[in-house]
């Protein structure tokens, strides 16, 4: 049994109550959602909050809702819920691709999309998914509600725009026609964090050329999208040559570090290889949607 440093614990009853508690207990307080990132860090005493504010009773944050041309996902939505949602899979197949390779069922049953994004671990798969899908983050705090783009939300490894006294409440995904998406990850073992992963979303024009595209990488030292990928892909007809070109761009854009999962050259190679694979799959899916 690994034992965290002493802490106090309180269960929030609503979003307002959670915000009140955060204000009351101040900088040494932390919300806990699924706990699958926070608790391991506490057990290793790498994180030592004095107060844990449990938000697991905030059912108001656990939802998947279609609202016009947006899909709204509550921050407390569990990995498992996302994985099992056919609606999500139909609109954003990248989510199911990613959820299938995030941790294991035990972790997925508790871990939440909000916790994943707020943890902002460079190997967090859902961060890349949200980047690629150009999600918006709805944040509430004492000063009201703000809506941020993903580039505003991310502030680097383990850092986000969510203030200590704020709560991430919701993610919003724009639904676009003729769009396909995909995610692929290389791991040393099922349930392991990514050695490297890539995600892509592609929107095709009516003539079958690329209208818009986004490529993101996980655990490969790139916080944002592969910047030039969209520019290179746009207006072109998807083919192997184009995927290879995008792969090279991704390899050039990434900045991985060597660790036990692999050396830099391998990770750079993965950026290339996986980018090609996800683009290939995303384009095929987009084409299918076009037909369907």
């Amino acid at each position, binding site marked *: *049994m*690994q*034992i965290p*440093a*002493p802490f106090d614990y309180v269960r929030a009853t609503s979003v307002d109550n959670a915000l009140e508690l955060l204000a009351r207990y101040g900088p040494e307080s932390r919300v806990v959602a699924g706990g699958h990132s926070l608790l*391991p860090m506490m057990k*290793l005493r790498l994180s030592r909050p004095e107060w844990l504010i449990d938000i697991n009773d905030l059912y108001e944050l656990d939802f998947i809702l279609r609202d016009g041309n947006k899909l709204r996902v509550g921050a407390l939505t569990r990995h498992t819920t996302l994985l099992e949602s056919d609606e999500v899979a139909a609109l954003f197949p990248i989510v199911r691709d990613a959820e299938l390779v995030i941790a*294991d069922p035990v972790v997925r049953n508790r871990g939440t999309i909000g916790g994943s994004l707020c943890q902002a671990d460079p190997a967090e798969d859902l961060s890349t998914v949200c980047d690629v899908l150009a999600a918006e983050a709805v944040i509430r705090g004492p000063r009201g509600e703000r809506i941020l783009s993903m580039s505003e939300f991310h502030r680097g490894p383990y850092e986000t725009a969510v203030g200590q006294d704020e709560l991430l409440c919701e993610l919003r995904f724009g639904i676009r026609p003729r769009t396909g998406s995909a995610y692929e990850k*290389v791991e*040393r*073992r*099922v*349930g*392991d*964090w990514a*050695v490297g992963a890539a995600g892509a979303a592609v929107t095709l024009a009516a003539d079958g050329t690329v209208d818009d595209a986004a490529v993101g990488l996980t655990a490969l030292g790139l916080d944002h999208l592969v910047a030039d990928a969209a520019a290179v892909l746009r207006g072109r007809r998807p083919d192997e040559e184009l995927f290879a070109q995008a792969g090279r761009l991704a390899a050039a854009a990434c900045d991985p570090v060597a660790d*036990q*999962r*692999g*050396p830099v050259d*391998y*990770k750079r*190679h*993965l950026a290339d*290889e*996986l980018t090609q*694979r996800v683009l290939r799959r995303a384009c095929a899916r987009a084409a299918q949607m076009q037909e369907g």
Partner: protein
Amino acid sequence: MTVIHDRPSNPAAGDEDRPIGYGRIQRKEDPRFVRGQGHYLDDIVLPGMLHSAILRAPVAHARLVSIDTTNALAHPKVVAVITGKDLLGLKLAWAPTLSADVQAVLVTDKVRFQGQEVAFVVAEDRYAARDALELIDVEYDVLPPLVDARKALDPDAPVIRDEIEGRTDNRIFDWEIGDKAETDAVFASADVVVSQEVVYPRVHPAPLETCGAVADFDAVNGKLTLYETTQAPHAHRTLFAIVAGIPEHKIRIVSPDIGGGFGNKVGIYPGYILAVVGSIVSGRPVKWVEDRSENLMSTSFARDYIMQGDIAATKDGKILALRTHVLADHGAFNATAQPTKNPAGFFSIFTGSYDLKAAYCSVTGVYTNKAPGGVAYACSFRVTEAVYLVERMVDVLARKLNMDPAELRLKNFIKPEQFPYANKTGWVYDSGNYEAAMRLSMQLAGYEDLRREQAEKRERGELMGIGVAFFTEVVGAGPRKHFDIVGLGMADGAELRVHPTGKAVVRISVQSQGQGHETTFAQIVAEELGIPPEDIEVVHGDTDQTPFGLGTYGSRSTPVSGGAVALVARKVREKAKLIAGAMLETRPEDLEWEKGRWFVKGDPSVGKTIAEIAMGAHGTVALPEGVDGNLDAEVTYDPPNLTFPFGAYICVVDVDPGTGQVKVRRFVAVDDCGTRINPMIIEGQVHGGLTDGVGMALMEIIEFDEAGNCLAGSFMDYLIPTAMEVPDWETGFTVTPSPHHPIGAKGIGESATVGSPPAIVNAVVDALAPFGVTHMDMPCTPARVWAAMQGRARPPI
């Protein structure tokens, strides 16, 4: 010749419901495990029990300058803080290891590996004990660490064991076996010689239950009861008597249900000793249980062998000789579990399953700033390393000769008629029929079809590999004249009592960590006496209740204790014969045995069952002269030789050419463990071992950075395989009984762990053949496989 009592092991066969004796029956211990009613060490709660925690060194090599415990002692719930200085006063600062070395219980002079024990806190609860660790102030003077075993003998290497008088380097031992001159001569005249460095990296047994102890010293009676996660309760009792000076009859060691051992729970860890000291000091029971990181970072690792192999052969593929030099990293203290005369354990079985003209090996053991151990991890004392070496070398040779690896093996096997076979390093293999096992395995795998499929796939640029490995194990240590551990002979006792109503209790000296002893040993008695297994209680794991013996590891329970149990049952059967004679008023020599009953020769209707005889023995039957009124017996079995299980494994992998990811698609395991007692338990052992092999081959490694920091201190970093990484195992068997074992059984616990890593690695290397790869070291992670494909395969250490 031993009779084989093997039954068909097809579960659908239907004739195996409740066999009285050998056969597929459900495990007797499982009802409590599947209901969550096992009783593990951490379930033990004694009145007034205190808890504890160990402060561990954050660095790998450092002089201890000072320890200040004032603040920790001021914690309201802390009862005691023990440091190395306190232990010096008690003469307990250093304890003997299983390899004639000593190990620091708590650091007194110098930290020698990251995670080493520095101080021990005893407190009212576990939380307080853990919190108080942060209140101990320790000052270290950090020294340069020695991490790379290849540099251990450099003249400028830091000397790790400078507390040993006269020690100026890190060499622990040089050991050799085989005829060097003869071997060199064969090499000099051979057509083909291939050399390859083969590394078996440091891995960890990683039992899911970590190590722990509850020490309860009764100051009034002077009696110590020590509950421990141990695979060898009796050996521990003797060692505690010697180390702690408590008389042996005042020590009771209890090993409750154990959540996996794999060799990790053979040695005596500082935590066990500290729990005892804590109980003596506080006058209350003290529980110590390590956490996952402590288990991975400080307890016995396994392997860590850098092996330079040479193999010599004729051009048509007759293997002539093997030669190897091993650099063995033993960490900071030499604590390897091994029979005394074998500093490299049973590594000298590296001649494998082949009929060689010559063989020679030398092993150099060195100290490094890493955790001690080098324990048998499901490896029968380093047979794992030996088999891995020879099976890789044979594959390397096959490639050089452009021969099929299965064919090369078939060509060189020891032949059935050559048994008992004396190899070139002093072993006498008891029995074997290697070709039959190999051919069965090829047939089950559809070997020819697989090779065809592979050729087609290669055309298309797909990477499919087929790996073959054949192993011969040496288990069941062992004859007292050759084998002992710290002076204790490796024999095992068994006591059997048949109660008046014919139900029995058998007490054994070995301790189960999940192997199913309560079933297997009941089945042996059942087979010998005809008492149903469910009527036989197997008692183990408590030194006050069981006869002396050395415990369970190195696949020795069935070869040694299994022999003891069969013999004690036969002793009871012979005694039953005398009593039956008295009851039937016949001469014993006129009686004949059928399972469960003595009857009068020629008149089967007149006889007595074991239950009737038991009642007679305890009742009022007029017993023959010299026979006492019970149906009990005891024996100590000193095995005349070791046993040599073997097997033929074939593995099929697919490698993703773009990412280097390896998928084990199929695995065929044909095992021969001699007489098969419970086929289901055997299969369970094989499945577990194969899974273990997938772990080592594909993902497991304990790595260190240059500063000596252990990089594998959690299950996020030290990966063990899950059900997702393994295929549906395809198992088969042949039966070649051991000629000297009372029931012909050979032991199965470690076969699959020994045999599977080379099969998997051979498959991966085979898959990478189109890239010109002839060898790569474990673990075959995606990154390492990809590097091999780029021609940049590197050893992991």
